[in-house]
């Protein structure tokens, strides 16, 4: 399958460090572009450009509030990211769950060995 234009999917969008930083920033609360620029040390046009990319791939939601636009995180855009990370995450989440349980069993075994021995 041909690769889509560089910024047209969530994977590409979050490959850029500033855009990840914007998503982190927008976690808790919505913010205007000026806030985003200031927090990340970007100029406003650069921040606007990143926000535009994030909106296009559905990672960020914008709403008008008076004269300004407020940007917030839009989790729906992350679904394709979750879809593939799920494989890795599931592997290690389940492996570590099993390891944790197994190590506890080993410790119980050692304790009972100690008691009987």
């Amino acid at each position, binding site marked *: 399958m041909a690769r889509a234009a560089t910024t047209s999917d969530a994977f590409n969008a979050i490959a850029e460090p500033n855009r990840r930083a914007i998503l982190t920033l927008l976690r808790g609360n919505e913010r205007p572009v000026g806030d985003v620029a200031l927090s990340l040390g970007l100029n406003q046009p650069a921040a606007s450009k990143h926000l535009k990319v994030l909106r296009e791939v559905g990672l960020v939601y914008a709403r008008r509030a008076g004269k300004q636009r407020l940007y917030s995180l839009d989790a729906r855009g992350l679904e394709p990211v979750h879809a593939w990370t799920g494989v*890795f995450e599931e592997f290690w989440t389940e*492996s570590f769950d099993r390891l944790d349980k197994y*190590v*506890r069993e080993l410790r119980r075994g050692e304790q009972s060995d100690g008691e009987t021995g």
Partner: protein
Amino acid sequence: MERLASTLTDSEREIVVSRLIDGPQELVFEAFTNPAHLSNWYGPNGFTITTHAFELRPGGVWDFIMHGPDGTDYPNWIVFLEIAPPERIAYRHSETPDDPEPFTSTVTIAARGDRTEVTLRSVFETREQRDKVVQCGAVEGGEQTLGRLAEFAAVRSGDATGQEQA
């Protein structure tokens, strides 16, 4: 179930994942370095392992098959690079000895009081290699690539995806 801590690191060739395990460092190291132990926990629920060779030394090989719950077999070929008891293991992971795209993982095992923090860092040859894996995972639902992706940890992109919309 405890949540994995995972991040997409600044290096775009890496994936890092970590987890606290309820047990002492030496025991966790043992669980990572003894094939009899590994078969009891390595891999997702429903997977089993058949080990054909296991030699714990730099240059030594762990040759094993992962059997998926649907009957699919996934070959694995791990060459140990460093064994530093009880705190570190490094290895190259591939499907077969001549796999052109192996990746390197380092497992760091650190005492944290009564518990042990395990951190796994996987480094790809190139960002393209990782991205390819990323796309395969997305397109194929990960099923076919699960074996070779086994060691790749999660990218919830830490900062980007680590939360749900309230």
